[in-house]
């Protein structure tokens, strides 16, 4: 029978660092999926995941065991991704004139007949990825957690360490920021 998370953590804390490996193996797919929501390049994703597990190892003594280890690890992952977004703020400035032809076509189709534009099309996914990249770090985090992962405000507050009112305020601002970016895209395309 496989050892439980609590047994593995106790062994690591007792000095057997090798027992950390099964925890990494078990949770790395979830951490990779989380990191891929915020970083596009695979090298950046790997750096984020590595940092999450190194931090988890260093801070393991602070894990009290009140909640599942996975929740504690995901909090660490979300906060590491937020740090990554904040440190890459400068790279957000792109012109929208470089929309790919399929993205332009999708947008034109939406402009002509909103119901006709297929939201499962690759172009729509590329376009939303482009828009998310333009958002500020807090806006991107809150849009991803609230609108894309469909988490509750309370869950987001626990994951990010923000208060519930702050999450609501940031969600409101993030939606406005996203609409502003969409307005700019529409303007660039048609004027």
């Amino acid at each position, binding site marked *: 029978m496989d050892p439980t998370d609590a047994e593995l953590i106790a062994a690591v804390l007792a000095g057997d*660092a090798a027992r950390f490996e099964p925890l990494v193996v078990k949770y790395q797919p979830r951490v990779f*999926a989380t990191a891929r929501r915020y970083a596009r390049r695979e090298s950046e994703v790997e750096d984020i995941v*590595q940092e999450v597990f190194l931090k988890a190892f260093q801070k393991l003594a602070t894990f009290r065991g009140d909640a599942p280890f996975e929740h504690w690890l995901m909090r660490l992952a979300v906060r590491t991704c937020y740090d990554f977004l904040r440190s890459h703020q400068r790279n957000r400035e792109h012109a929208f004139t470089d929309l790919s032809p399929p993205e332009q076509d999708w947008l034109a189709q939406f402009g002509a007949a*909103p119901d006709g534009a297929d*939201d*499962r099309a690759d172009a*729509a*996914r590329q376009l939303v990825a482009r828009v998310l990249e333009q958002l500020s770090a807090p806006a991107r985090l809150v849009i991803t957690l609230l609108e894309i992962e469909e988490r509750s405000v309370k869950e987001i507050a626990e994951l990010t360490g923000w208060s519930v009112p702050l999450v609501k305020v940031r969600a409101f601002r993030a939606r406005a920021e996203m609409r502003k970016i969409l307005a700019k895209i529409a303007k660039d395309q048609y004027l």
Partner: protein
Amino acid sequence: MFDMNLSDLQTKLLRAARQAPPRDTVPYAFEKRIMHRLASAAPENPWAAWGSSLWRGALACMAVTILCAVWSYSGSRPAPVASTDFSQDLQSVVFASMGQPSEDAW
């Protein structure tokens, strides 16, 4: 064409993002890379830790010293003496010139 409904566009794009969850694939032997990083992390040098804590202590002491110096300087400075008798002040100002020796006196 420009009066595009941005709310609808936002809703549609967010729906598109929801329908495309990111991959959870892991590069081959990634856990080995993590374990190697953990193993190769330099063990903490006790002398370095001692040195850094000494520096932190020295900075804190210096801050306390500066605060004490500022406090003692501002506390010991005599308060400006306010004159209580306006008539005497006026008299001394008015008759000040009479106390000065005249330039054309022999």
